């Protein structure tokens, strides 16, 4: 395989997988003793938030590397149960983002989503998942900087709590 700039650099640098901002276990006093970066699933709508994340990329707006995105056509497609499954399988945080109400590409999908996620958020907290681990918001296709801000703030909040060791979920 061709040698790339990255693979050359990789040969030289230590192969640590610590995400930026994760700190040492000691720094996260009170967090469980598991030293791994927090893993966050982001479920985003194709037309606004996925494109907004693209815009952030085009603008090279740096973000922490903890979020992995799942693309759906509309936030209305997102069954709240996906979020529960994500937590059940071990996600440390879940972020949902779609078009601003009124701008939905399918005109109404996010209006339904808005009601469902409000209820889900309240239930999640009740089930023992702290508020900082779940967020749902709206980012439009042109809001690259907002996407950067949302991701940075959310990851920081989750990192403060550290990797999740839930018992009920």
């Amino acid at each position, binding site marked *: 395989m061709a040698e790339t700039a990255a693979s050359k650099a990789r040969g030289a640098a230590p192969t640590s997988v610590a995400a930026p901002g994760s700190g040492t276990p000691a720094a996260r006093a009170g967090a469980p003793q598991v030293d791994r970066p927090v893993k966050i699933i982001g479920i985003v709508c194709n037309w606004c938030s996925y494109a907004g994340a693209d815009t952030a990329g085009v603008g090279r707006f740096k973000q922490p590397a903890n979020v992995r995105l799942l693309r759906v056509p509309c936030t209305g497609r997102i069954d709240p149960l996906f979020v529960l499954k994500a937590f059940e399988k071990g996600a440390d945080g879940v972020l949902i983002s779609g078009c601003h109400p009124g701008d939905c590409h399918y005109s109404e999908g996010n*209006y339904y989503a808005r009601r469902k*996620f*409000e*209820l889900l958020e309240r*239930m999640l907290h009740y*089930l023992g998942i702290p508020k900082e681990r779940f967020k749902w*918001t709206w980012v439009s296709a042109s809001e690259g900087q907002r996407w950067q801000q949302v991701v940075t703030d959310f990851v920081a909040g989750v990192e403060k709590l550290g990797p999740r060791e*839930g018992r009920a979920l």
Partner: protein
Amino acid sequence: MSRQDEIRELARVALSTGRVDYFIGWREAYNPSEVVPAFVDEPDSVDQLVWNDLCAHNLTTFLKRKMNDRPNAKVGICVKGCDSRTLVALMQENLVDRERLYVVGVPCDGLVDRRKLEKEFSDEIIDITTSNGTVSVTTHQGLTRDFPKADYLLAACGWCRYKNAVYADDVAGPPAEEADRHAKPVWTDVEAFEALSDGERDAMLEEIFATCIRCFACINVCPVCYCWDQCVNRSRRPELVSQKVDAKGNLVFQMVHMLHVAGRCPSCGACDRACPVEIPLSLLHRKMNKEIYDMFEFEPGAKLDEMPVFQCFKIEDAFGD
């Protein structure tokens, strides 16, 4: 006439005039301490119908459209206040054929929790009667003890705001004194759990749901749960819950149910009563209804002309940022 007599009379008339082909109510099972649902075909058999403090069953669960034994039959049914709300929820979604229904509203002053009484005895109970706020329980060995009814109410009666049916064609007897529905609902049971720390709630829920055996009784008895064999909890494609039963999976299983009935479940309590391992499902559905009330000031199944809140939206909804 007592309410029991009224029910029997209304059923007799409905059956003999052909207004209904069969009538669903409650009857004694093998002794006066046991009540089970009754299906009465003949006007002469209405005397089996009873009304007492043990008539907890939400009979509307038998109305779900897929009940196909007698698809064109006209059905009469008794509903308490709580039951009438699941009936209204089914009507809001056009899942029951109103033309074929004859609904008898039964005003209710609260029912007795048999399971709680059982725990007071080591012997089998053979009779339970209530009068003037006192419950008299007799066992097989002849022991009789009295209890204040107020301390042995069903959990669902503790949060009841609808003592009279919200929908009925006829009412069995004078109405019960209604709670002030303009007052905000009280959620002390939910608030007690909310007051615990995140870690405490997490641990308690794990302990509770570890005992679930996935018998599906809660889902089978729920009146607004109508997917039957197609229930996504049984589905392998997509697979939301595995057949391998563990605490986390059990909680996801219940949350699937809860989120699917959100906006249609009036906390009638049938699921709590059906659970063989006594999981307090009210912890979940009461919390859900508390939040729904907070979000929309909506009580599921209270008004026929309302739309369940997750089937619709308002552009002005102000949730989230």
